[in-house]
């Protein structure tokens, strides 16, 4: 299973927890939007053979916390982890098709969306008057 949990960086949590409620509410759509974007980008980039990789994508809200919301994007397809990281053997219809390199679909989409999410959260915290060094 390939997956990533969206909840921002630890270093932002204290600042986010100190935000007024109205700004906390503004963090929630930033996180939701980028989680949905990661899912959509991965879905568009997956090769379609059986469709299991594309159909295994799932977005789950883990609940609203003090500093916003945590959203988990994952792929429930059994072979998603091996597709993403590559294989050493690959037998299909009795034939050994050889090694398969890493698929590089889910993780690049997740990393790009995570960066956009963190930029949005940094901007939010700065707008609230906190000084945040750019960690990106």
């Amino acid at each position, binding site marked *: 299973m390939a997956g990533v949990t969206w909840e921002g960086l630890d270093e932002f949590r204290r600042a986010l927890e100190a935000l007024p409620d109205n700004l906390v509410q503004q963090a929630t759509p930033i996180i939701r939007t980028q989680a949905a974007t990661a899912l959509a980008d991965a879905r568009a980039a997956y090769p379609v053979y059986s469709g299991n990789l594309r159909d295994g994508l799932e977005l789950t809200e883990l609940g609203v916390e003090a500093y916003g919301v945590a959203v988990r994007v994952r792929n429930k397809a059994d072979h998603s982890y091996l597709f993403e990281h590559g294989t*050493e053997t690959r037998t299909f219809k009795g034939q050994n098709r050889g090694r398969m390199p890493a698929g590089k679909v889910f993780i690049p989409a997740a990393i790009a969306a995570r960066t956009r999410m963190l930029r949005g959260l940094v901007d939010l915290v700065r707008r609230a008057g906190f000084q945040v060094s750019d960690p990106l």
Partner: protein
Amino acid sequence: MSLDALDAAVLAHLRADPVIGANVWWAVAPPGVDDAFVIVDQLAHEADPVMPASTVFERVTYLVKAVVAGPDPSTWGIPAGERIHELLEARLDIPVAGYVIRNLRRTHRVRITEIDEGTDARWQHYGGHYEITAAPVEVVP
């Protein structure tokens, strides 16, 4: 100045280690290399063009994993995976032509047991995603 230099530096750094050995390959091991080896591959890349026509830093996420055939990774796979971590985590002193490494950290642990459904062969994958933030020595205007 090319990110190829960063790829080459990571490969050379791992290959120079006596525990890992020279059996380190980019993306896939070549035919004939079948038992135990290390794979390095780029998973993602981000550049941060703060100023027009320049890049202040580049961030590359590498998949670095030890791969070993068989059901038991304890003899080589796990030690090699742990050695990979020792060699890479927070190592800012890896020489890279044209770049200075500003950050190097593991962002994700990889631990996979792969089972070939046709032959029931087992492969163990042990390593991680390593994110390198590298700054060009000279920012090209």
